[in-house]
Structures are given as structure tokens and as C-alpha cells.
């Protein structure tokens, strides 16, 4: 296998883009990434997306985006892994370059969630869960996370405020990210007063429904020439899987897919969790952050929330997370999210993260989950 580097990144602002289509957003991000990489072509394009067919009536995104960015004719396909679709597309792009099949690959993640009514979007997002044994009972995706969070609070004797530091950190970091959806800080008081959606989860505890697109350009590291000083190496790319349904888990309080993909990634990169300087975690709900920190090896079982309360997760802390706002405040355009995370880690490792720059950042990890971690996609980047 060859080494692979990220040589270009592009992101659109995340938000409710009533005036823009899925193809506009994907094309803007892709063109930005190609410009950033100083290239005008790619051998292949992989597009991460979860719900374009369901919400916008458009499938066949690979060919569509290839054509829109002026690369009609290239090798292309869409990759779907629920909310982890973008990261899964990056995994496919990584494999395509590492294998030697392609030298230059464009990976784009794009999602438009505001094209439909909110109850249709809610129903569509629940497609990540088990249609016959969860969704049919009216169990939304938020409800699944709420079921996990309520049990977690019961097992470890916690209250909702114990999770507040995750949302406070995400919003504080998004203030300085021009691509973020929510650029205003929140306090623990805001968190405590927030409206319940599915108890114990409130609006201040869940990522927003939004639109966005991000892209990265991958190149075989051997092909980098002298003027590629901003290239960031992908040291690991790994997926782990688990049951779709919560009821099918041997131990619902442990995210096995997160453990599997993290451990595979650490082995590939030849590092241990303590070597990671920053972690873009899948903070769609704070319970996912907590359980991910544990299963990825950053906190002992039952201690994930403590890490946030101790301040370890801020940009100045021991393990900064959601450094550009995370899913909670940058926003979570589901199939694009994994590519945003990758682009943000690259910003950090290039030293281009502005006011959110993590000092001495050399190793960054991004992890994107599909469903309630039915699949977990982990990437480790080094500069």
C-alpha cells in the first residue's frame, strides 16, 4: 500500500441554504478543494451522501458531481454509510490511492436536509436505524440516542448538566469558524433551560438539521513535489461495524464499532490514544461524544463525561475535541460531516485554524459514526 496525503480542502458554510441546491454546494466545495490543491483534474471522484434520493429526489450523485465540476468521464460513485457517509467516501478514496489504482482523487461529502418538511427529514434520518424493529415503532434517531443517554445516566449516576460542557465547548469553538452554522457561545444555563425533544435530550444537546458540502483532494505521497508544504499525511483509515439496532447489542453501553475502528487506526498509524493532539469526535449528541471517548480509549468506562467537566476537551486542554465547532455547532449535514471533520483536522495540522489553533498539533484524529455507531470510520492524520 502507498502512503496517501491530503493536498487540498474545500468547505461551504454550513446552514439552511434555501437558495442553494445540493449540486451547487457540492460543486463549490469540490472546486475550492481542487484550487487549494493547485490541480485542475482528478482521476476519480467519490461522493459521500446519505439522503439525496429520499429528500431531494436525486440519486446517481457520483456522475452528477463529476460532470458539474468539469470532470465528466472520470471514475466515480456515491458512498453511503448513513451519517458516516462522508468519512466512508474518504475511506474509499484513501483505498483507491493507497492501492495504486489512482494518483489523484477528489472526495466530496454533500447533504441537503432542509429540502423537505421537518417530520420527513426526521423520518429519513431514522433510516440509519432498523426499519422493521425500531423505525416502525416511531423511534426516531434522536429517541435512540435518548434511550442510550437515559440508561447511561442511570448506570453512572449522572444528570443532564454533566453533559453540558460538550455543547458549551462546541459553540465556543464555532464562534471563530466562518463555516460554522452557530457562531454564538452558549452557557450551562442555556443548556439547562433548553427545550426537550426526547428526554433527556434537548435542542442544546443535539446537532442541527442543515445543509453543507466539503471536499478534500488526495494524492499519493510519493508524487508530492517540493511545493506541497501544506500536504498532510493520512496515517490511518479504518471502519468498524456493529448492529444497526440498539436491541441487538450485547452491551448497549459500549460502542464496539468505535473501539474496533479506533484500535485498527492506532495500529495502522503506529500510535496510542495519548499521542493524539486533537480529536474531531462525532458529537451529533453529547452521549455519542461521551461513549466515543470511552470506546476510543481516551477515557475509562463511565468516565467520558468527566473529561469534559475537567476542561480536557477545550482547545487548550489535554484532548481538544470539536475544535471548529463539531457537529453540534459547525453543523451536521450528515453525509458531508465526515469530510468537514477531515478538512478541519487538516486546517489544524497545517497551522491554519486561526483562533482555534491547537498548539503543537502533529497528530489529529477524526471519527464519524453511522447510525448509533453501527459503523464507525476513523482517520488519523499527521503533519
Amino acid at each position, binding site marked *: 500500500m502507498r502512503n496517501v496525503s491530503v493536498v487540498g480542502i474545500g468547505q461551504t458554510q454550513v446552514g439552511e441554504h434555501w437558495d442553494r441546491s445540493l449540486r451547487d454546494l457540492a460543486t463549490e466545495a469540490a472546486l475550492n478543494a481542487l484550487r487549494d490543491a493547485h490541480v485542475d483534474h482528478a482521476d476519480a471522484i467519490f461522493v459521500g451522501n446519505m439522503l439525496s434520493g429520499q429528500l431531494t429526489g436525486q440519486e446517481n450523485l457520483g456522475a452528477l458531481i463529476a460532470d458539474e465540476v468539469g470532470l465528466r468521464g472520470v471514475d466515480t460513485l456515491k458512498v453511503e454509510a448513513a451519517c458516516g457517509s462522508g468519512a466512508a467516501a474518504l475511506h474509499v478514496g484513501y483505498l483507491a490511492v493507497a492501492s495504486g489504482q489512482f494518483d489523484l482523487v477528489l472526495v466530496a461529502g454533500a447533504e441537503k436536509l432542509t429540502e423537505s418538511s*421537518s417530520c420527513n427529514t426526521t423520518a429519513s434520518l431514522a433510516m440509519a436505524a432498523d426499519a422493521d424493529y425500531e423505525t416502525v*415503532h*416511531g423511534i426516531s434517531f434522536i429517541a435512540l440516542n435518548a434511550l442510550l443517554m437515559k*440508561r447511561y445516566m442511570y448506570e453512572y449516576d449522572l444528570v443532564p448538566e454533566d453533559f453540558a460542557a460538550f455543547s458549551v465547548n462546541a459553540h465556543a469553538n464555532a464562534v471563530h469558524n466562518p463555516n460554522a452554522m452557530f457562531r454564538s457561545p452558549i452557557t450551562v444555563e442555556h443548556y439547562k433551560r433548553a427545550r426537550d425533544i426526547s428526554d433527556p435530550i434537548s435542542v442544546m444537546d443535539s446537532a442541527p438539521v442543515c445543509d453543507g458540502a466539503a471536499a478534500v483532494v488526495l494524492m499519493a505521497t510519493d508524487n508530492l513535489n517540493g511545493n506541497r508544504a501544506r500536504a498532510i499525511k493520512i496515517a490511518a483509515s479504518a471502519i468498524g461495524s456493529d448492529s444497526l439496532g440498539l436491541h441487538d447489542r450485547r452491551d*448497549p453501553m459500549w460502542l464496539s464499532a468505535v473501539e474496533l475502528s479506533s484500535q485498527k487506526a492506532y495500529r495502522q498509524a503506529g500510535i496510542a490514544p495519548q499521542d493524539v493532539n486533537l480529536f474531531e469526535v462525532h458529537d451529533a449528541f453529547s452521549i455519542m461524544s461521551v461513549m466515543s471517548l470511552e470506546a476510543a480509549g481516551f477515557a475509562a468506562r463511565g468516565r467520558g463525561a468527566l473529561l469534559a467537566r475537567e476542561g480536557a476537551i477545550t482547545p487548550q486542554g489535554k484532548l481538544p475535541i470539536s475544535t471548529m465547532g463539531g457537529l453540534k455547532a459547525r453543523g451536521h449535514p450528515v453525509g458531508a460531516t465526515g469530510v468537514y471533520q477531515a478538512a478541519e483536522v487538516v486546517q489544524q495540522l497545517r497551522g491554519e485554524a486561526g483562533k482555534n489553533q491547537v498548539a503543537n498539533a502533529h497528530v489529529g484524529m477524526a471519527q464519524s459514526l453511522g447510525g448509533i455507531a453501527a459503523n464507525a470510520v476513523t482517520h488519523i492524520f499527521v503533519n
Partner: protein
Amino acid sequence: MDLARHWRLKDQRYRLEGTVCADCGAKFFPPRQVCLECKSTNLTPREFNGHGELYSFTTLRSAPMGFEDQVPYTVGVVKLDEGPMVEAQITDVNADALKIGQRMEMVTRKLRAQGDNGLIIYGYKFRPETKAD
């Protein structure tokens, strides 16, 4: 198409029919074709009695399409006495009175109606156990 799909699941919806592994005895709901424990494909149908403990629950204030008229409603995970866990709506009780760990039992109820002239889907829900059997 939708009709066939719900008809196919009738044994699960009405009788909690899962499978048991003939080789190692592991029990599954929903039914599986491959045993999670020993990878055997020698599984046979098995009905579950529908009694168990409440593992977790939540009340939805915002519903997916098709459930808007039921809001607020409560869903939960029940760990059956025989092992498997089941997710379903919780009924016949005020959610404020629910406690993790309490005894629950299966009942058959209307899950949802697909419009005025559409299919009415019946299936299992759970309620607090009325008396020990």
C-alpha cells in the same frame, strides 16, 4: 408492497416470534439466520412470553412522519426475561411514573394508521406488568 412487508412480519408483531439456536441454545428476537454466539445456521422459531424489565425509555416531543398525531408518546427498550431486548412504544401509563428496571409485559395495539383509507398496522407495545403470571 407495504402491505406484504407488514404481513411478512406478522409472527414477530403479534407473537414475538424469534429464533433459538439448535446448537448452542442462544435465543434471538428479532429472528436471525446465523447464530451470533456460535455462527450456526441451525436456528428454529421460538416465541417469547413478552415479560421483562424496562432497560430505558424516552418521551418524544417531535415525531417522525406518520407519528405526528401521537405526540407526545413514549418508547422504550425492554429486556425480556428470556434474554433478548425489544424496542417498542410504552402504553397504558404516564411516563412520569416509569422507572428503569420495572416489570413490563407485551400487549397488542395499533402501531399506526396510514391515513384515513390506508393500512392499519398492529403490533406489540409494552405496559407495566399488571400481575405476575
